[in-house]
């Protein structure tokens, strides 16, 4: 079972991967966006780490709710409310349980992803973070490692797509040929989850 400490370590791991890849994310974003995705997310996840350290929440749901709230208030760009809604809604779906199973998490994350889709109005294939998250949610039912692989494959599969949401959509055909920054960072979030599960030595 996955407790609050596991979710806390997941968020710290995500902050680490975002920090490591921030320049790469910004580079991807400079091709089709406004060149701030890496720095925005780095600031957001640094705030998440700080908030969690200050007052560690006692349940998995509370960890994700606090993290989501931090992202909404500190990121500044559209990825803030999108990732914030993802984590907050997932946290809400987990409720007040002191520990949850991988299947519980996959189900809750599915609700979080649906909320992101509703907030941004995007669907699968629109070249957004959903293209990494939707396959990841399905694969998490199998294992954490399968979730990581599916998210990564989903992000890579955004290269030939034409953007239909956000600033990149103004580029039309010129958005084709670039990997979506949001799908790339979403794959990092899922990779951090799998890394945390492997470090914990739990069922992967």
């Amino acid at each position, binding site marked *: 079972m996955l407790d609050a400490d596991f979710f806390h370590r997941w968020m710290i791991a995500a902050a680490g991967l975002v920090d490591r890849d921030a320049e790469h994310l910004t580079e991807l974003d400079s091709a089709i966006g406004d060149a*701030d995705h890496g720095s*925005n997310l780095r600031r957001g996840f640094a705030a998440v780490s700080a908030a969690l350290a200050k007052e560690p929440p006692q349940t998995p749901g509370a960890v994700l709710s606090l993290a989501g709230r931090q992202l*909404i*208030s500190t990121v*500044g*760009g559209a990825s803030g*409310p*999108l990732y914030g809604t993802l984590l907050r809604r997932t946290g809400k779906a987990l409720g007040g349980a002191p520990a949850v199973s991988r299947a519980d998490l996959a189900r809750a994350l599915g609700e979080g992803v649906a909320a992101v889709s509703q907030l*941004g109005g995007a669907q699968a294939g629109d070249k957004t973070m959903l293209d990494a998250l939707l396959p990841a949610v399905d694969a998490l039912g199998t294992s954490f490692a399968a979730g990581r692989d599916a998210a990564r494959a989903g992000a890579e599969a955004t290269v030939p797509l034409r953007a239909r949401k956000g600033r990149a959509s103004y580029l039309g055909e010129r958005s084709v040929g670039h990997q979506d920054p949001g799908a790339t960072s979403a794959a990092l979030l899922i990779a951090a989850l799998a890394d945390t599960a492997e470090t914990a030595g739990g069922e992967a």
Partner: protein
Amino acid sequence: MSRDAQVGIVLVSHSGPVADSVAELARGLAAGGATAPVAAAGGTLAGGLGTSTELIAEAARSVDAGAGVAVLVDLGSAVLTVKAMLAEGDELPAGARLVDAPFVEGAVAAVVTASAGGDLDAVQAAASEAYDYRKA
């Protein structure tokens, strides 16, 4: 709703100067007596492009007189941030509502209507109707 309270207007832009200027324009065009309270919340706390939940929440508090708050947004993170804040439930005043309207034209319509004593539904309708004015 208090009989005398006016609907407050919050203008949320990706850019601080855009929000400030549109607020000034709307106040100017609504002139002729006291105008409804208008607050701009553009850009990030650091003054860059983006949106700040802190600035938005503060702006909404400052114009909330109990008759409701109409929030108009321009693009990208401004839209998504306000939607996410409304979903959260406790960062914006109870009577705050996201109004679907063109930013500049909707702001003028909203401020004129609110200044004339229109309620939140009337302000929302006037701002949204600004979409119907075709320019070519």
